[in-house]
Structures are given as C-alpha cells and as structure tokens.
C-alpha cells in the first residue's frame, strides 16, 4: 500500500522516527519526488490497511508537532533538563563518592556471615 504525503508537512526525520516506532507492525519504504514523500507500508501481520496508514501518519504528525514544540520551548526545556541532570550529579563540583573503609568492610563481612549462618528462613 502506498501513500503520497507533502514534504512541506512531513520531515524526513519525523517519518524515520515513525517508521522505527512502527517497525514491529510494518515495514516502511520511502521514495521521494520533488515535493512529496511516497511511502509504502507493508504490514507484518494481516490488518486493515487504511487504519495502518492513518495510525502511521498520526505518529509522523505527532513527531512533527513535537519538533515544533521542542524548538519553541528549547530555552526553558533545556534549562530544566540541564538543571535536573546537574543537580543529580551533585552540582558543578560533586564530592567524590564515599567508599566503605576497612572497618565498614569488616562489619559488612561479619553481617554477611551472620546472615548466611541464619540460612534462608
């Protein structure tokens, strides 16, 4: 089944992500003219082709819409993402993680031995 969609609406990137998302459901082949993408969808199992086409184009459109939103909000979104990742690291100069010292290792070994002695119950 083939469908022609305008390049002005669907980017190659959105179609690629949609094809990957649909990879369990269908194989997607892409050809192009100057103004359109020509998509061929081959379902992996028997299903209604019209529904498959509709779902696939919804997915591509959703990706396209996401690009626009992410581009529009890039500054605030990047700020939040970076802030969250940086804070999770422990700030700009995170302290070195504390490693158990010899005394704690000894204690851990003793706890482990005691637990082993107690058996599974």
């Amino acid at each position, binding site marked *: 089944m083939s469908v022609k969609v305008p390049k002005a609406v669907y980017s190659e990137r959105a179609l690629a992500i949609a094809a990957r998302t649909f990879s369990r459901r269908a194989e997607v082949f892409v050809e192009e003219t100057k103004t359109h993408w020509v998509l061929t969808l081959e379902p992996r199992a028997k299903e209604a082709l019209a529904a498959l086409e509709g779902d696939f184009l919804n997915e591509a459109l959703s990706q396209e819409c996401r690009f626009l939103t992410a581009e529009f909000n890039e500054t605030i979104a990047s700020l939040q993402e970076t802030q969250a990742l940086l804070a999770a*690291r422990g700030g700009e100069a995170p302290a070195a993680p504390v490693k158990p010292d010899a005394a704690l290792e000894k204690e851990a070994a003793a706890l482990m031995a005691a637990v082993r002695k107690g058996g599974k*119950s």
Partner: protein
Amino acid sequence: MSRLTDIPAGWVPDLKRLGAFNFRRMDGGWWLLTNEWGRYLMLEEGEFRLFVEGKLGDGDALSRRLGEAGFLRDRMDFGALAKGWLARTDFQRHQGPTLHEFVTTMRCNLACRYCHSSVVDPSRTDTDMSLETAKKAVDFAFSTPSPNLAIEFQGGEPLLNWPVVRFVTQYARRRAEREKRRLMVSMVSNFVLLSDEKLDFLLENFVALCTSLDGPAAVHDRVRPLLGGGPSQARVLELLCRVQKRAAGDGTKSYYKPGALMTTTRHSFPHAEAIIDLYAELGIGSVFVRKLSPIGYAKRVWGEIGYEPAEFAEFYERCLDRVLEHNRKGTLLVERWAFTCLTKVLRNTDPGYMDLRSPTGAVLGCLAYNSDGRIFSSDEGRMADHAGDPLFEVGRVDGTWAAVLDHPTTGALVHASTLDNQPMCDHCAYKPWCGLCPVYNYEAQGNIFGRVPESGWCRTYMGVFDVLMRKLRDPEARKVFDSWLAAEDGRVAVKEGK
C-alpha cells in the same frame, strides 16, 4: 487545551495584559486557569471573559486575585511568584535519586493476574539477588549524592529472599549512621510468609511495611490468588491486623504502621464502595486507588482486566465520594492519589511522587536494582526488561553514578518527559502538576515520547484531575482535603521533632 482558538467565538482577547497561563473549560461552564508559578484560579464564564478581554477594573476584587496569582502581566510580584515556582519544581534541584528499589528476587508465591513485576515460580532461586550483589547495590545507592535515601524492597516477594532483606537493612543502616545520611527502609510484601521472627526483625529495624489489598475477598481473590490456586485475602487481612497491632502497641514504632495499596482492575468496578468501606474498617488511615498500566503480565491480560481511562475516572470518583463520606462521619481516611495531587495544587510543593514530575523521576529520583545487579531507570523499566526489552537498563551495581547519568538512555528519558517538549502537555491546564512516564509510552505506543492525545496515561490523569477540581469547588469536600494536608503537616512536624 489553552489555545486562543478554544476561546469562544466573538471574544476579543487583550493580549497585552494577559500573563502566560493555561486554561481548561470544565463541565458546568466554569474555567480553570493555571500558570507556571503553580498558581490556579477557578473562574465563572463571565469572569473569564472579563479577564480575557481586559475589561476588569484595576480596583476590583477579581483583578486583585488575578494579579496576586500572576495572571496579569502588569501586576507580577516576581519575588513571591518565583518563590512558588522554586517550591513547585524543588525536585529539579535534588541531588540524585532518593528512592532505591531493590528487587531481591523475581520469585513469588502469588499468581496475580495483573502482576506488573512479571514474577517467576518460587523454585527459580536463580533469580535471587546474591549477598555480594546486594552489598554492591547498597554501596552504589550510597555513592549517589542525596543526603536522604530510601531503600524499598520489592519483588517478586521479598520475603522469599530473607537473607538479602536482613543484610541490606543492617548494612545500609550502618552506612547511613556513619555517613550521617537519613535512611528510610520499606518493604512491599504480600505478607503471606511473614513469621513472628521476621516481623520482630522488621519492626526492630524500622522497616516500613506495605501490602496489597484489592478489597473484599470477591475482588482480591479473583485477581490475587495463591500460586497453584486458593484465596489469599483472609491471610493478608489476618497478617495486616497482626502487624497493625504490633506497630500500634509500641509508641516508637507507631510511625511505621503498615500501609496497603489497591490496584484497580475491571473486576473492582462493581465494588467501589465495599473496597473503601473495608479500608475504613481496617483503620489503615489511607487508601490508594491505583490505576492499572498495560505493562508486564497486565499487558497480556488487558482484554480481560483492563479498561478505558473514562471508566477508571468514573470508578475513581465513586471511591473518592465514599472516602469523603467516611471522613465526614469522623473517620480519617486519606485517598493517596488525591492527597498527592492536592499537595501540588493547594500547597504548591512537590510530594515526592515520581510519576508526576517534569522531567520524570526515573533515574533522577529513583533507580531500580535488578536481582542480577543491573540497574534500571525505574521499576517499570525493569519490567520492560523482564518482558524482553533491556532499553531502560542504565548501568550496573559495579559501575558509577556518573556513568548512569551519562548513559544515553538517561538523557533521552529526561528529554522525553520534560513537558515543555510535549505538544499537548505544553498547553494543558494540568501541566504544573503533571508528569509523563516514558516507559508507559514505550510499552503502550512504541516510543518513549508517546502520542499524548491518544495516551491512556494522559486521559487517566486528566480524568482524575477533573474529578479533583470538581470536588475542590464543594466546600464540604474542600474541608476534608484541608484536614488531610493539616494532618500531614502535623505528622511531618512530629517526625522532624518540631
């Protein structure tokens, strides 16, 4: 959604005066307004029109309310509003995950129809976490920078790998004491194997206990039978009461009184009131009316036990109505989902619920340690692995926290769950309080970004928020909600010795 095209025809917005805000027309003809500061207002249609068209007088009461809440561009009190924004997004500045979920074994002695954890037969001891891996997992958790850590035993059934539960509890307590870090340990168990000896150990070591109780036997036993068949509800109730009695009998342990969670299946629908009545009767103090997600075994049996988001919202409202009824009669019974959302709405603070964060709590707020030493972004990510897809693995217990943060999956999850990157969420009135789960999106719709307009996740949360907003307009319900938040304030004050 908050697009100018959603404003009724004929209205002429005064764009120069309007601050940035999202809105939603609610059933009954009133409008909900929210903004990034975390403030909200409920306006009648006439009020909303006056606001949108900039026809409010400077001195009138509504104008003052809108100005104070940051909805009018020329009346922003940035100091106060920024304070609110910082409180609402506090989790974005947390130093690493606080919740560390330990999967001590994949084995389980129940055969729950919906088991999210996709567990295995009790004979499969090869799925147990070893003591060596457990030690490395504790060391990894303590290598993350948060001053507050919570270790939660999950499964499978954690009691089937008791040595690891004992060791992790004791070793983690020793480490926390030496490093002066606050540690909370908890266990989610079906209680069936809980002996007096084990209970003694757990209470002595301040391990908070939580079990699953789906309601009366007719509901619970239908979806949570013992492995090999047979009812489990009576045994769970007996043990729950025993644990309650023990915890209540000792003042030092009363904070650790057991909790219970219910999971909603299609079979729960006819029993909403009976489920809530059981929780009230048991004196547990709270009930969490949880939705089912199409993850793990639930995905395979979704046709039998799953449901549409609208069906869940209807069930949820019936449950909440019954909860409110019990409260009005003098029984303090908190519905946890409402409590979580209302903490955000009414207090503008983060209650620590990982699902309702932007970016999501996966990796940044929680990690799941599989029994084989692999680390996953969350428990849901681990379940996807159990179903054969290791996409959400972000490290190993012998690796480093920095490597987990630098893992490409971590970056992708953070990006995919930041609501400002999501088309519909960006315009949603519930955005200040909501969150997305990339694992859910992946499982339900094939990629971590999902398609929000069709997402069951989104429709479920929208449904719950709609119910809560309606209830907030009812003065009697509002009184009950305020009492829950006040009780929590008191509990926190006692815990912190204030």
